[in-house]
């Protein structure tokens, strides 16, 4: 049969971010996929090598819009490793609260997008409505709905009081009720099951060989979670279960996320009720970056996120390497398209929770004279060209 090349993206109704896949199809069956990337690469690693390490905190938290707190957590941890700076216990608990709230809304958004991809527009809208409550909780805690900028070297920037604590706990009860309903929908609805069960299978060995991380790997039965294996902040004190599913298909990957939302709700409850007393931020902000090296691993909503930083003792880091989870999940996860049907491609891609902004990390292109240049943070902040 003739093999046809079908472009999928970079602008496509089922893709919310710019990436292109060249699908080679034989009839309806996909025989080969090649990714075409680079639409969103902003050179953040190079930008980090040119700015003060304090400013990089704000650059790194802008790598991704949805999971910005986890990026600032990873960057803060790597700087704290080099500075040998340990945050107070209260700050560690508050960081867990912020990160888990982020995980809840990140998982809710991908569940909602999956509903939309499958044709359930009302389910998408209901989930996005409920997700807004989580964004409000995040605003209460960090001061912002989306970009938190909550962390600082040696602690966090804001504390919670009793009033906020009670309101967050009350909203969590509401979210838990709603998620129980959505779990029922994803488990029992015949259309959702038909579109997801046995679609895009990845075996456990394939997941390990192809370096998949996070819910994508856990949906294939790989018992990996940075929070359990390599605990950071207060994760070694907060009880939670590692969720894995052995079905290895798109449905399993979505169910891992639903169950993780329940775990995250319990973790936020535990942290808020067991919040240690004491300071929440550093007394004095350390402004020196000694010579050294650090590697921090954290569990982002999409999987393991690594920051590797090398400092030569100057205030500007020598090298900052960012490896985001979508980088491996999207490029290496193409193995799941083997023998897939063309109509299933959007569902499989959505089941990886793609985050292209994360994957490709600012260059500015002046459209008047096609000039490409890389600005410093000061130039960006000043708004000058």
């Amino acid at each position: 049969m003739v093999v046809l090349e079908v472009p999928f993206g970079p602008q496509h109704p089922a893709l919310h971010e710019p990436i292109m896949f060249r699908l080679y199809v034989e009839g309806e069956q996909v025989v080969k996929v090649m990714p075409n990337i680079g639409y969103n690469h902003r050179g953040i690693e190079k930008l980090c090598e040119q700015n003060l390490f304090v400013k990089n905190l704000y650059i790194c938290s802008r790598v991704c819009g949805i999971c910005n707190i986890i990026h600032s957590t990873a960057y803060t941890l790597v700087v704290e490793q080099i500075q040998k700076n340990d945050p107070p216990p209260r700050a560690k608990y508050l960081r867990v609260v912020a990160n888990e709230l982020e995980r809840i809304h990140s998982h809710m958004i991908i569940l909602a997008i999956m509903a939309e991809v499958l044709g359930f527009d009302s389910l998408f809208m209901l989930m996005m409505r409920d997700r807004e409550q989580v964004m409000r909780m995040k605003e209460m805690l960090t001061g912002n709905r989306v970009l938190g900028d909550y962390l600082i070297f040696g602690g966090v920037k804001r504390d919670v009081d009793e009033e906020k604590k009670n309101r967050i706990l009350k909203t969590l009860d509401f979210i838990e009720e709603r998620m129980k309903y959505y779990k029922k929908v994803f488990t029992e609805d015949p259309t959702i099951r038909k579109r997801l069960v046995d679609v895009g299978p990845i075996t456990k060995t394939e997941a390990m060989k192809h370096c998949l991380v996070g819910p994508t790997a856990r949906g294939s039965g790989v018992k990996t979670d940075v929070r359990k294996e390599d605990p950071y902040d207060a994760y070694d004190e907060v009880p939670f279960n590692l969720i894995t599913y052995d079905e290895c298909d798109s449905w399993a990957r979505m169910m891992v996320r639903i169950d993780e939302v329940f775990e995250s709700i319990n973790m936020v409850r535990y942290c808020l009720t067991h919040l240690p007393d004491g300071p929440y931020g550093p007394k004095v902000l350390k402004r020196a970056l000694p010579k050294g090296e650090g590697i921090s691993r954290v569990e982002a909503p999409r999987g393991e996120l690594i920051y590797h930083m090398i400092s030569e003792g100057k205030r500007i880091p020598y090298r900052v390497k960012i490896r985001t989870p979508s980088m491996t999940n999207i490029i290496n996860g193409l193995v799941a398209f083997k023998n897939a049907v063309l109509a299933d491609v959007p569902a499989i891609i959505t089941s990886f929770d793609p985050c292209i902004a994360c994957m490709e990390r600012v260059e500015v292109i002046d459209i008047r004279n096609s000039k490409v240049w890389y600005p410093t943070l000061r130039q960006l902040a000043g708004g000058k060209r």
Partner: protein
Amino acid sequence: MSIEEILNKLGLEFQKMRDRRYVVYVDKGVLKEKIKELSDIVNNELYLSNITAIDRPEDNIFELCYNIWIYGKGLVSMRTKIDRSNPVFESIQDMFPGAFAHELEVHDLFGIKFEGVDNLWEPAFKPEDMKGVYPLRKDWKVKK
């Protein structure tokens, strides 16, 4: 078996960066072999977390850094040094097909060639007019 015991068994000298982080410098000729041996000792219970390069123009080398996570144990950062004027290294995609994404990034942004595979292309992450320009090298300066 702890990571220290595994690395001693492999006959590798290591530095402990902190808990669950180990740095190992190996010769470029034996890196692939050592990763294979490491994989056999832990029954393939590991995965390649990332590959990155560190540019050291003053020493005329690239440091290639293979970060390997051994499930439940810790991270081994295997490093080797390659010549900066002729940056070629062997690919490990036959061992870990997942190395593709990482090798593609290093190939595209550092200009390091990986032998034994033909699936890496340029420019992948860069804009189209940046072919042959490697922005993460230290001698590539941002135009102000």
